[in-house]
């Protein structure tokens, strides 16, 4: 509770300071009033002006969730699922429309600087300081510059300061939860120069709910800084430069802080009481510890030039450098250095009153180099380095057919090349990716959107693709790029009080890349293309009612239908049905919100969880010949039915003044966890058909891994 005391002391001090400052205000100097459309944005979560169905997660909503990272900010939002794929190392997958995490493109201000390499841990590296909103756009073809967004796009929109401000946000809570963030902005030259700096340091402690000596949720810290400067060079030119630095540190598995500095020389089964993973862990902490460190730099420059009266030329260039250093308890070290650059030139011009033409070209280059003393030096496996190149031309016509209809027709023409130099493998392709978006405003309240898009993804397979389970290496048998067709329909109704809608999105995947484990112990896994097409359909209904007396009621129900064959290719069980209820009440200086999320039951065997076991036992190697002795064989299959469960998050905030907010939150009020249910993520995972070939895994994940967390917060606008 030391974090909580710190909050209380700081809040008393700040309140005293604020009161004394207020007393000195010059009553004759009126504050500057700036009119923004933030309220109207708050009114609707759907961007009514966009042709694509775009849902916006506002800054307020992010703060209500007490989100410290991108993964937490988008968790349980419409169409989005945040999964922990590994309870030991905290790797997360953020999925849209039921597709895999690799099919989600993460952009920052429209710049795609994240890839499959960064998304395993990077979704926890992106801090929320300096973030104004996150747009969720569903379906292939969601962004012209993100053809790999087969599931959709998360576009993080950083704050664009309109006036000087400074904010601080301090949170502290149980389970070693803490957050310190701040942002400051300055404008000059009559608003022609805008500067933003924001930073965050956040921490979450480990969880060992069954107290067996192995944590189900890792200790985690993240830190980030963003600096953004925008300037209007002339009346027709503007320049924006953004720099971001992010760092995360994860220590999983261990409960006493043991942090291995090197890999295990020999790997054997860690000992549990009775060989049962649900019982006390008896062995060395270094045999269950995962250590992950990630550092990232991003640099973006964007130049805009107005051409003539209404045309615009935009040049963007960017780069992201990422370094990952990890030690896995499966007995190896792994380090990678990834560089991704993106550049684009885009020209937008109205052809006439009805048509706006956009022409552009973009290019991406990604180099990933890795090193591992154990995998490459000792085991002599080929490194998973790859080089990815992509160049494209695109064209888009946005056609305002009439007052009710707007059509966007676009296509990309891509050249892709993926090379795995140490695997002697190259995949090269030319692709055409058309997309059509139709917005129909039936009347002032009703809007429909129909979308079709073709997307692709170059499967950048590497060790993390199997998430650390490929200790015997892998081979590349990929011959094709993943492609997908996506068709979606969404309808939206908005009045002063009511907002409701629904939609359905279907995706047909082709050449899905997956890793096929060898049937023989010691043989490498092979990444290959799945031969059949796989279908995924997601649908939803949602509604919001905003009453006059400060009540807001929001509800939604979602369904994700995945082909059975597709489920078997996924690393983890995903959400299949979800319902949400959010109740918000504001009165006087108080705001309260209660969010209830219900997740439907699932058959975990469909996700290959039927190869997860509680124990192993000694059985005769050959019952007919007891002289051969006993071998270890998995027994007692773990639970394969994830139950229906609900979580409750509650927040109350008080504004004694406009610029101060005290808050108290409880996340997971009922403290429901899968470990508390009796089914921890720890398991003996059988590899292949042989029940005598198994490893300790922490991937039996289907529900919450953190229990109830109390958080006190203090936010100030200085």
């Amino acid at each position, binding site marked *: 509770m030391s974090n909580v005391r710190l909050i209380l002391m700081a809040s008393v001090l700040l309140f005293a300071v604020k009161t004394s400052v207020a007393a000195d205000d010059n009553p004759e100097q009126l504050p500057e009033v700036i009119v923004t459309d933030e309220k109207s944005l708050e009114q609707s979560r759907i961007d009514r002006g966009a042709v694509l169905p775009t849902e916006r997660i506002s800054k307020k909503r992010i703060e209500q969730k007490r989100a410290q990272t991108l993964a937490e900010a988008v968790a349980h939002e419409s169409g989005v699922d945040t999964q922990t794929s590994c309870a030991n190392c905290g790797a997360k997958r953020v999925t849209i429309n039921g597709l895999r995490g690799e099919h989600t493109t993460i952009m920052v201000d429209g710049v795609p600087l994240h890839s499959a390499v960064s998304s395993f841990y990077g979704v926890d590296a992106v801090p929320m300081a300096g973030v104004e909103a996150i747009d969720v756009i569903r379906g292939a073809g969601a962004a012209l510059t993100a053809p790999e967004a087969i599931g959709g796009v998360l576009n993080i929109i950083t704050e664009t300061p309109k006036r000087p401000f400074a904010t601080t946000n301090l949170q502290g809570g149980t389970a070693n939860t803490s957050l310190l963030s701040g942002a400051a902005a300055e404008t000059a030259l009559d608003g022609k120069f805008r500067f933003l700096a924001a930073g965050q340091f956040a921490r979450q402690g480990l969880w060992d709910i069954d107290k067996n000596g192995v944590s189900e949720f890792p200790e985690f810290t993240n830190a980030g800084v963003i600096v953004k400067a925008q300037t209007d060079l002339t009346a027709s030119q503007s320049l924006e430069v953004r720099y971001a630095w992010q760092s995360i540190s994860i220590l999983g598995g261990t409960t006493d802080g043991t942090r291995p500095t090197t890999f295990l020389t020999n*790997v054997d089964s860690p000992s549990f009481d009775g060989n049962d993973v649900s019982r006390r862990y008896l062995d060395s902490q270094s045999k269950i510890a995962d250590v992950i460190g990630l550092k990232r730099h991003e640099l973006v420059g964007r130049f805009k030039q107005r051409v003539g009266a209404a045309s615009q030329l935009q040049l963007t260039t960017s780069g992201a450098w990422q370094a990952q250093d990890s030690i896995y308890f499966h007995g190896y070290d792994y380090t990678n250095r990834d560089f991704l650059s993106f550049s684009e030139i885009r020209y937008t011009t109205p052809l006439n009153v009805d048509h706006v033409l956009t022409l552009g070209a973009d290019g991406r280059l990604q180099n990933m180099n890795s090193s591992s003393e154990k995998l490459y030096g000792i085991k002599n496996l080929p490194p998973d380095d790859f080089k990815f190149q992509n160049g494209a031309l695109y064209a888009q016509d946005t056609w305002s057919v009439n007052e009710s209809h707007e059509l966007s027709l676009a296509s990309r023409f891509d050249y892709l090349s993926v090379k795995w130099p140490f695997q002697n493998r190259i995949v090269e392709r030319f692709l055409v990716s058309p997309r059509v978006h139709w917005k129909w405003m039936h009347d002032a309240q009703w809007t429909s959107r129909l979308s079709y898009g073709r997307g692709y993804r170059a499967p950048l397979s590497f060790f993390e693709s199997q998430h650390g389970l490929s200790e015997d290496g892998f081979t590349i048998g990929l011959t094709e790029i993943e492609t997908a067709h996506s068709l979606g329909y969404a309808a939206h109704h908005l009045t002063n009080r009511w907002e409701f809608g629904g939609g359905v999105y279907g995706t047909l995947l082709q050449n899905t890349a997956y890793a096929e484990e060898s049937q023989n112990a010691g043989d490498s896994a092979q990444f290959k293309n799945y031969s059949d097409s796989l279908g995924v359909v997601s649908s939803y209904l949602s509604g919001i009612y905003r009453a006059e007396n400060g009540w807001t009621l929001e509800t939604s129900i979602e369904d994700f239908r995945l082909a059975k064959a597709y489920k078997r290719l996924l690393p983890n069980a995903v959400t299949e049905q979800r319902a949400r209820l959010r109740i918000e009440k504001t009165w006087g200086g108080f705001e309260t919100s209660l969010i209830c999320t219900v997740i439907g039951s699932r058959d975990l065997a469909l996700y290959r969880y039927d190869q997860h076991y509680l124990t192993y036992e000694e059985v005769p*190697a*050959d019952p007919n*010949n007891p*002289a051969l*002795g006993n071998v270890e064989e998995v027994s007692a299959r773990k639970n394969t039915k994830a139950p229906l469960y609900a979580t409750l998050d509650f927040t109350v905030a008080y504004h004694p003044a406009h610029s101060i907010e005290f808050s108290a939150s409880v996340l997971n009020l009922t403290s429901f966890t899968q470990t508390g249910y009796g089914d921890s993520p720890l398991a003996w995972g059988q590899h292949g*058909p*042989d029940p005598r070939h198994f490893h300790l895994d922490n991937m039996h994940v289907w529900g919450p891994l953190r229990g109830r967390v109390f958080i006190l917060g203090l936010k100030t606008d200085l």
Partner: protein
Amino acid sequence: MKLYLKYVIPLFTAIVIISGCGKENQALDSQQGSRPETSSTEDSSVQLRQLPLVFEGTDKGRPCRMMLHREWYEGGVVDRKNYRAELSTSYEHDGEGLGKQIVAFSALGDGKLLEWDRAATREFIKLALKAPSDKMLDPASFRVKWLHDDHLHDNTCINVKLVP
């Protein structure tokens, strides 16, 4: 003539019959391994039977093999205690495996168990015979614990039969 019919012909017939049995025995032994006609007083590779021999069984439905490369009796003493066999198995990967190892009868196996082990790495081979013997005759199953890079694999091959 009587002497010839009474003694020579039966004796000749008996010699012929005995010679024929020896050949049959050799034919049988060629399937199961023949007895040594000579033995060496040193550790030599004098073949007790036609080698190498290949034995195949199944491991969880997948084929597995053992190869017998050499066999001999230490010091030429033909008994169980001095029997040695050099064999290898199909349990290996990328050149990593146990390779050829020399098994001997276990003191505890009652003539039905041959084994080899390496205490430092906890690797071993255990070979069970269908019936007690003083050499590797008619294996039933075998178990191999072998180190692949950094972890031990434990495999058992059952229903082993000679590959003709």
